[in-house]
């Protein structure tokens, strides 16, 4: 049986094709303005990547912020449930998931792929991919460079603003005080990690800990998180598709 999961996220839309419980293809595309269009594009792309057409497709399940806009989906499910299922498939020993996406961050506690408890950041972008994207811009570097640069720092700057916009002004102040670029980069990463740690500690940490979402692709952040939590973090090969994968598994 073939099923498809579509994770219609704020920043990117992900799609996964599952055939007889095996991933046969996935697609990650920028969402842009229109959730529906991005959903359709991701769907077409994942089909062609899997070398399939629409014949024989069973259920399609949508998740993510734009889940209600994916009109061709048979059902929708929250991304929290979807991530838990997807991570459980890839990392069966996982009990805790840290997911930092473009719009929000969440920590999920689970047993056998079923959510037991979860926490999500408040509505603002503090502690999310958006925070890094914004503040990297203030340093005039790309998001990837931010992580690499941060690893050179010996003395991370202290960024106290939790608000993304305020943090940007704080970066400007630090630049004016001639603080090294790598120290600011490291400070920014520590700040986002601190936000996440508060949620992790509130929920309680039970290994294995999986890290998913776009931000998990940043090696600098993964290293800092491991250091602060003093635990080895499990990363899926493609940390961005666990939601879509979970949706496909639940379809």
């Amino acid at each position, binding site marked *: 049986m073939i099923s498809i999961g579509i994770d219609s996220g704020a920043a990117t839309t992900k799609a996964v094709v599952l055939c007889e419980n095996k991933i046969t293809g996935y697609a990650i595309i920028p969402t842009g303005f229109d959730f529906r269009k991005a959903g359709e594009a991701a769907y077409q792309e994942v089909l062609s990547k899997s070398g399939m057409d629409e014949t024989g497709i069973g259920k399609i399940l949508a998740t993510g*912020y734009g889940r209600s806009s994916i009109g061709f989906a048979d059902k929708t499910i*929250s991304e*929290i449930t979807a991530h838990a299922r997807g991570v459980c498939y890839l990392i069966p020993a996982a009990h805790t998931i840290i997911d930092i996406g473009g719009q929000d961050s969440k920590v999920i506690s689970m047993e056998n792929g079923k959510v037991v408890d979860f926490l*999500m950041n408040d509505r603002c972008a503090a502690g999310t991919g958006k925070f890094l994207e914004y503040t990297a811009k203030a340093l005039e570097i790309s998001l990837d460079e931010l992580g690499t640069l941060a690893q050179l720092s010996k003395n991370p700057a202290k960024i106290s603003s939790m608000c993304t916009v305020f943090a940007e002004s704080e970066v400007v102040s630090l630049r004016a005080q001639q603080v090294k670029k790598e120290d600011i980069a490291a400070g920014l990463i520590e700040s986002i990690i601190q936000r996440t740690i508060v949620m992790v500690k509130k929920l309680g940490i039970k290994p294995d800990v999986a890290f998913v979402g776009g931000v998990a692709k940043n090696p600098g952040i993964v290293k800092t998180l491991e250091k602060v939590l003093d635990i080895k973090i499990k990363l899926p090969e493609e940390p961005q598709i666990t939601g879509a994968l979970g949706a496909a598994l639940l379809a």
Partner: protein
Amino acid sequence: MDKIVENIVFIKSLDLFKDAFPERIDQILKNKEEGKKIVGTLCLYVPDELIYACGVDRVILCGGRSAPIEAAEQYLPRNLCPLIKSSFGSVIDQKCSKTKSCPHFGLVDLIIAEATCDGKKKMYELLNQYIPIHVMDLPQKPENQNALEYYIKELESLKCVLENLTGNKITDAKLRNEIKSANETRKLLHELYELRKRDSPPIRGTEMLKVLQQMHFLSPDGFRKNLVLLLDELKVKKRENSGPRIMISGCPMASGNMKVPEIIENRGGLIVVEESCTGTRAFWDLVDENKELMRALAERYLKIPCACMYPNDRRIDQILRLAGDFNVDGVVYYTLQFCHGYNVEKYRVAEALKKSGIPLLSIESDYSGADTEQIKTRVDAFLEMLE
């Protein structure tokens, strides 16, 4: 894509509450013309029985709509609870005054306020420039030895204030009568909540909330009359409601504020009980009719477990008891933004629920629609977790 559609079995008497607004405003206007005094209240700690025993009419001034907030922010800080801002805004917004659409400004002769949270107390100082206010003090350690005596004294002062306002005397006979009738209403609500304990309750949480939001806006007699009709209808009509059983616990949801309960029920949950001022706190305890009147009143009202009280173990006990009695699958802890009392108390409630194995979802929100999708995601995930 909401998951639940309107229940096909229609409850006619629910409309009595929904449509009551214009008639009630007419009634207040008529009372006013006939020389009756009108007071406004913003809290359950102010006993209705005293107000009505003095021949005064009363309207609730708690704001649940976002529209008046803009006007209020010219006076009040942005980082303040939306209920306080909305209440203040609907009084000071001149467009809102002396019209049939707004019962607040112009109709109210006196506001009977109360010393609960800091935000409200300070707001009352500003409001006092527009409308006369009597602020009732509250002993904030209700278990203290002197608390009850102190509260009785505050009720005695309130009695004097009301008598001075009207020139009427609050006689024991009148007060006893009002206590009896308020208890009748409370008993009817208990009877209604009994129906909600069923596996398939005949009334949904969003429907019940709209009824309770009218409780302190309608006259006590008008409210009770509608309640009797509602109960009669609910008892006979076959109506199926299902979904994970949810208790809402936390801040009041004043009239106009339906965002979170509507999301919960539209996404497939079923609210079976509300531990809030627009829920059980409004009617749970009865006034002991066999005791000295003022003491009996004070005892009943001081039991209200508001988060401004210290210590507030009573609330935690009540939440656990309700969770068991109403067989809830999960609790949605609802707080208004910047409501420090309920926000801080969340930690203790969460601990207690965790110990009892009852899942909790915490939602902090204001009156804007800005976080609707975020709340839907949390609610969906919570309901999926409970299923």
